[in-house]
């Protein structure tokens, strides 16, 4: 890959992203994302689900730019809440709470917020370049994949997602299968047969992505949160001293660099993403530190590294989605949902067929990060005031936006009934401790997997060995098996031990 190619790609991207209207979408996405990220109890997945129908009205570039903006904006807003009220705004800022809130209690909220912002911005810049460098060769590689390779790659992606998911591996595995099954509902594209439609005409085209995510993530979240009692203590309503001292910057430089590198790498892994990245970065800093006892008591490194890492990971997790068309986490599944609403089939061909869209979205991330750092620090006061909106009103607003959003897609009242069903299902999953994210990945990948599986079988004239004789496919499958065995084995052994003791 030539440097001049890289530059021309990036300049194409920047010319698209810098169009005034696209800048507006980027700004809107970043602001909405921050606003929602600040609110505890409404995560980035739910936010993106809520706003998916709105992007239907935008041009494809604008839609994806805005969705991406919501994602990293939410990332950013989450850390603000973490630092100021000792509550993670969303899951990737859980570790920021540890030292960020302690810093705030010591009157250093401004420094913590500023370092979080600077770390995120730096990581965002590096990750943007990383995507631009990594995407073309990966895309070229992906274009040489046969159907069998693709099929195996998806299996590997799903296995990664299971292995890295929180909670029980077995449940995650079952959720993937359940998601794939839900993905098969509707007309079978190869044969025209109907599957699992119960004669309901709204299901002939399959279960809609938007009602599914709104039910599972939006409605179920309201139900779960409405019972929780609210306790929000704001440390300070006023944040002063936004500029970090020279000593703060010096102490944070190395952690930011390490966090960016670690987060960037972990973000590429399917199922990894921002949460894993921030946890690992925090652990790494604590291990490397000469004074690990300071961690948890307001160490600035404990804010800088995870914040850089989660932003880097948030962005590099776009790499498998953009180049291979494979979502690595629930947020990327949402991006794919956004693309599909606009009739774009995600995969390696996107970069070739729609270079403006592809590079424009990548370049917009840089603009978005810049907007976040310039706008958000002065607007901290406004964001903290958002925390005063009581959940009893927020939940009503979320419910309404779920309903009107789904209705607006096809003007179909029946699809609104679906969110009621999926909401109940989502609450059941929540109570049974089953993470819904793997289900979403299965839902997206199930139908794709079937298409490639059939194509591979047709090409090989019915020889299932094709999955093992093609070297790439065999390698993917082998890795998948090894990963699964590694995680499942200790579980089985532990379960046996406990059973024997009883």
């Amino acid at each position, binding site marked *: 890959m030539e440097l001049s190619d890289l530059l021309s790609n990036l300049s194409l991207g920047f010319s698209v992203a810098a169009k005034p209207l696209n800048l507006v979408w980027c700004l809107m996405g970043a602001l909405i994302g921050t606003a929602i990220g600040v609110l505890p109890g409404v995560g980035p997945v739910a936010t993106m689900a809520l706003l998916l129908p709105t992007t239907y009205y935008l041009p494809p570039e604008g839609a994806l730019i805005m969705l991406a903006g919501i994602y990293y904006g939410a990332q950013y807003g989450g850390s603000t809440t973490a630092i100021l009220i000792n509550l993670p705004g969303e899951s990737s800022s859980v570790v920021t709470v540890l030292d960020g809130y302690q810093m705030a209690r010591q009157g250093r909220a401004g420094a913590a917020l500023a370092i979080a912002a600077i770390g995120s911005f730096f990581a965002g810049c590096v990750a943007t370049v990383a995507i631009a460098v990594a995407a073309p060769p990966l895309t070229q590689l992906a274009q040489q994949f046969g159907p069998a390779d693709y099929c195996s790659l998806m299996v590997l992606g799903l296995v990664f997602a299971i292995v890295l998911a929180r909670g029980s591996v077995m449940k995650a595995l079952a959720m993937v299968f359940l998601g794939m099954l839900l993905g098969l509902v509707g007309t079978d594209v190869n044969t025209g047969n109907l599957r699992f439609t119960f004669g309901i005409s709204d299901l002939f085209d399959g279960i809609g992505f938007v009602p599914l995510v709104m039910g599972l993530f939006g409605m179920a979240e309201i139900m779960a949160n409405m019972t929780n009692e609210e306790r929000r203590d704001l440390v300070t309503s006023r944040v002063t001293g936004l500029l970090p001292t020279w000593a703060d910057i010096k102490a944070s430089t190395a952690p930011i660099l390490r966090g960016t590198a670690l987060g960037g790498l972990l973000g590429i892994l399917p199922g990894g993403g921002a949460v894993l990245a921030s946890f690992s970065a925090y652990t790494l800093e604590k291990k490397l530190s000469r004074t690990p006892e300071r961690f948890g008591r307001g160490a600035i490194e404990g804010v800088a590294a995870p914040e850089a890492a989660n932003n880097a990971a948030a962005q590099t997790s776009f790499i498998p989605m953009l180049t291979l068309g494979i979502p690595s986490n629930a947020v990327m599944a949402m991006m794919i949902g956004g693309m599909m609403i606009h009739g774009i089939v995600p995969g390696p061909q996107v970069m070739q067929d729609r270079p403006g869209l592809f590079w424009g979205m990548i370049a917009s991330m840089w603009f978005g990060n810049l907007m976040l750092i310039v706008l958000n620090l002065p607007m901290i006061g406004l964001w903290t005031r958002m925390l005063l909106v009581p959940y009893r009103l927020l939940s009503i607003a979320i419910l*309404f936006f779920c309903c009107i959003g789904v*209705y607006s897609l096809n003007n179909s009242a029946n699809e609104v009934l679906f969110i009621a069903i999926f909401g109940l299902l989502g609450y059941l999953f929540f109570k049974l401790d089953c993470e819904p994210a793997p289900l979403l990945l299965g839902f997206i990948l199930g139908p794709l997997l079937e298409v490639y599986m059939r194509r591979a079988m047709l090409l090989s004239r019915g020889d299932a060995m094709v999955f093992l004789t093609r070297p790439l496919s065999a390698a993917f499958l082998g890795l998948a098996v090894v990963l699964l065995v590694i995680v499942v084995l200790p579980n089985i052994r532990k379960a046996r031990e406990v059973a024997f003791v009883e």
Partner: protein
Amino acid sequence: MRVKGSQDLAAGLMFMAAGVAALWIGADYPLGSWQRPGTGVLPRILSWALIGIGGIIAAKGLMVRGVSLLHGAWAWRPVIMVTLAAIAFALLVDSTGLAVSMVVSMALCALGTPETRWREFAIFAVIMVAGSALLFVKGLGMPIRVFPWS
């Protein structure tokens, strides 16, 4: 035998039930040939996988000490009211328009929590209806009427 982890048991049974149901509904989906796998191949694989894994999870729930199904209260009130709110919106929106369906569904949702203050809710509802009529109907041009008579 006493159940040691009723949460896992319930989850396992749920997955098994989904597998059995899919197997039963999809019993007549054609399997096709090796060269042209039919409509029924993947559903059947997935159904059996769900039954198998669900069985393992359920067995674990029976034998291994785990979380109880009753751990943390079940939020019956919000679950029922939020669901009813969505259903009400779906049933009313075409026949009565945006304003009525919104107010009914928002009120049902507000009944889901004891924290609701009705005066505050009334003001909020008016703002929401006015705002969304402007945004969705005027702004985005959604083909939906605001009032039953409009």
